């Protein structure tokens, strides 16, 4: 509150410089594959922020969140690929993806309004699986989703007619496609962070938290809990829809296996580990859980080679093992998450004097 305006501007400028320089630092230092990892991390951050609205703010445990990601991705794939011969521009498909995912959010929310906790988790889990199974099987009698083979040759995202998939030369600076996607994703992630932070500190955000804290009291306070909950589902889902569209354009390929239950669990872990309900924590959680497994995947083999002279544990299973260990440690020693909000920290601590 009492931070001088000059310092705020300085901070924003600093963040802007770091975010613009990051792909160059990562790309030149570690190779463009890592910029690609960064791109995915940004998609996961968007997903985690969307799920955070539902789980972190409104306290509605959603285990099928990845379905909205799938809806956004398939919408993009269907409207911008040779599959149906449609080639809609990204600026039209992405907002449409947000809208359609938001509608599906309401569709999921409406029948589950009376459910909380475990019961809601089970229904949402089922919803996530239903969407995935639909995508897997909607290839006959009419081929809509192309089934398990997925949809390929999806149009890359174009900004002002420039496809982000091809390298670009600007003022003599060479920008590979992964850099271009990085900048687009950073802008959109910042937009989503902005929207989330604004919502959190508003009449709507307070109503969400009130429902999380005590739904009956929230009702008695005059909050129309039905509408406010549906709004949380719709907002969270729409973020997932945008991220899904970006994913489809970035990968140029979608198939149902990208949207398994494990992905929902992963996004939930990002929210919980980072710090439920706290935007910076959720961003950190998304970044860590997207980047660390990749680091392990690439690092585990060579490290074992160096230490033992051969690879004892398959890097893939080691990755899952360490991931589980990390989860247990964090929940044991930082139950409120790695970077919880000040309130949340107090919530998990004993009442002070």
């Amino acid at each position, binding site marked *: 509150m009492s931070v001088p305006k000059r310092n705020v501007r300085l901070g924003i400028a600093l963040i802007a410089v770091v975010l613009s320089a990051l792909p160059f630092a990562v790309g030149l230092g570690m190779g463009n594959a890592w910029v690609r990892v960064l791109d995915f991390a940004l998609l996961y951050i968007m997903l985690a922020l969307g799920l955070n609205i539902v789980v972190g703010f409104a306290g509605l445990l959603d285990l099928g969140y990845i379905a909205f990601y799938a809806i956004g991705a398939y919408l993009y794939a269907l409207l911008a690929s040779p599959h149906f011969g449609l080639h809609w521009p990204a600026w039209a498909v992405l907002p449409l993806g947000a809208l359609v995912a938001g509608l599906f959010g309401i569709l999921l929310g409406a029948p589950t309004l009376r459910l909380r906790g475990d019961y809601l988790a089970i229904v949402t889990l089922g919803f996530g699986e239903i969407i995935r199974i639909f995508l897997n099987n909607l290839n006959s009698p009419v081929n809509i989703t192309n089934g398990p083979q997925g949809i390929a040759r999806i149009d890359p995202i174009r900004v002002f007619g420039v496809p982000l998939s091809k390298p670009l030369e600007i003022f003599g600076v060479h920008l590979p496609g992964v850099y271009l996607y990085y900048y687009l994703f950073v802008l959109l992630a910042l937009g989503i962070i*902005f*929207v989330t932070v*604004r*919502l959190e500190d*508003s*009449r*709507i*955000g*307070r*109503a969400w*938290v*009130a429902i999380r*804290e*005590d739904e*009956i*009291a*929230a*009702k*008695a*306070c*005059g*909050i*129309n*809990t039905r509408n406010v909950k549906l*709004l949380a589902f719709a*907002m969270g889902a729409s973020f997932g829809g945008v991220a899904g569209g970006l994913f489809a354009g970035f990968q140029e390929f979608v198939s149902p296996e990208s949207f398994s239950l494990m992905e929902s669990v992963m996004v939930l872990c990002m929210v919980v580990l980072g710090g439920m309900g706290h935007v910076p924590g959720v961003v950190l959680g998304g970044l860590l859980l997207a980047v660390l497994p990749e680091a392990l995947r690439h690092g585990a083999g060579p490290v074992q080679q160096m230490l033992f002279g051969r690879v004892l544990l398959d890097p893939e299973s080691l990755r899952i093992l360490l991931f589980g260990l990390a989860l247990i440690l964090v929940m044991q020693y930082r139950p409120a998450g790695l970077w919880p909000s000040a*309130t*949340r920290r*107090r*919530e998990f601590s004993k*009442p*002070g004097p």
Partner: protein
Amino acid sequence: MSVLLEATGISKRFGGVEALKEVSLTIEQGEIYGLIGPNGAGKTTFFNVLTGLSGADSGHFHFAGRPLDISAPHLVAAAGIARTFQNIRLFANMSALENVMVGRHLRTRAGVVGAVLRNAATRSEEAGIARRALELLHYVGISERGNDLARHLSYGDQRRLEIARALATEPKLLALDEPAAGMNATETGALRQLIEGLRGDGLTVLLIEHDVKLVMGLCDRVAVLDYGEKIIEDVPAKVRRDPKVIEAYLGGTVV
């Protein structure tokens, strides 16, 4: 005086138990109306039906000159009835100030677009919410605890906070469910002053209370429920001498 709330033939069953049997009562503008009765007499059930938390099997309410829609709690709150709970229900992990700010939800408008754009209208509305919330904390006497989490407040302060949150919805009728439960004599005395202050400011109060002394001293009129039936509705002086009341509730001794 004009009638603020009129309940007609309110009945409510839970399986074989008749929690409320054809209860009718009228609460007049500006009075403190006490609702007493032994445990399980149906007082809280009456509150829950009135505030839309559980539906009535039959009967209807007339409030402030029009029929009261009790199909959803937020509609009741919007009509101008606010309540507190017997077992305090605060938003435990929100600050005291935020608790009261939530109470302003009903009387403010900003939606998603306003929240995201934070335009002039939203900013002034937010400032108004914070200002009013602080005033109400002041009013109930806990303004210095505004930034503390609700669950870290003392029991008495939590009761006050719940009243402040209810007041934030701008009620015409404030329904208090056993506000003095668990309070010591000093806290009860302070609570009494607060409720009298509310009446002084023109609010009508419906009070469920076990503390007979408090009810008899504070209320303008009292109704007694016994096994879901209203057995009397009168001024305290008459209620405390009524043989049916003495038998049902006061255990045979005149207080």
